[in-house]
């Protein structure tokens, strides 16, 4: 069974590929990343664009 972290990683991967149904948010109050359905509301900053844009080499 995949851990919470593995699920997060797989969603981040899918976001990078443009196939995710979720978005990634960073909640500065808890200091944690959270996945939530696209377009839903919640606390924190949506940072899905970071995964979509990718990281430098």
């Amino acid at each position, binding site marked *: 069974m995949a*851990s919470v*972290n593995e699920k*997060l990683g797989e969603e981040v*991967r899918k976001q*990078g*590929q443009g196939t995710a149904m979720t978005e990634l948010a960073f909640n500065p109050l808890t200091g944690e990343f959270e996945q939530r359905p696209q377009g839903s509301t919640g606390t924190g900053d949506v940072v899905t664009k970071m995964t979509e844009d990718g*990281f*430098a080499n």
Partner: protein
Amino acid sequence: MMDNERYQAEQMVLRSKLPANAYRFMNMNTAQPFVVLAARTNAGNVYTIRIELAEFPANIPRAFVTRMLRNKAGEEMDSPSASMHTLASENGWTRICHYGANAWTPYISVYKIYVRCRLWLEMYELHLQTGKPMDYYLKHAT
């Protein structure tokens, strides 16, 4: 180097986002200013990120985890690695490759760099767990 107006703006953003004891600007009136920020991963592990601000915001600032991290194989993460999104280390610290030249603009805040480094740490811990390279999770910028 940041002008005072930008410095105030960066402080304001961090103040609104992070606890006061989670970050500290240092050496701001010198040639080597930097900010250190605490980062706690979802698993509860704590790291310190250091972002060097000498050429910020005109150029991409160097960002480090202030210790030498090791990969799943136990090797030091001290050299440029595309698959692990790292650059050559300095001072014995692992250097994170965050924004690329094509993505960098002077409007990117210290907070955004911090969140990017925080995401890098999250995927680093996942790499330790699964053995998959970090670029399995974090794609390369185009």
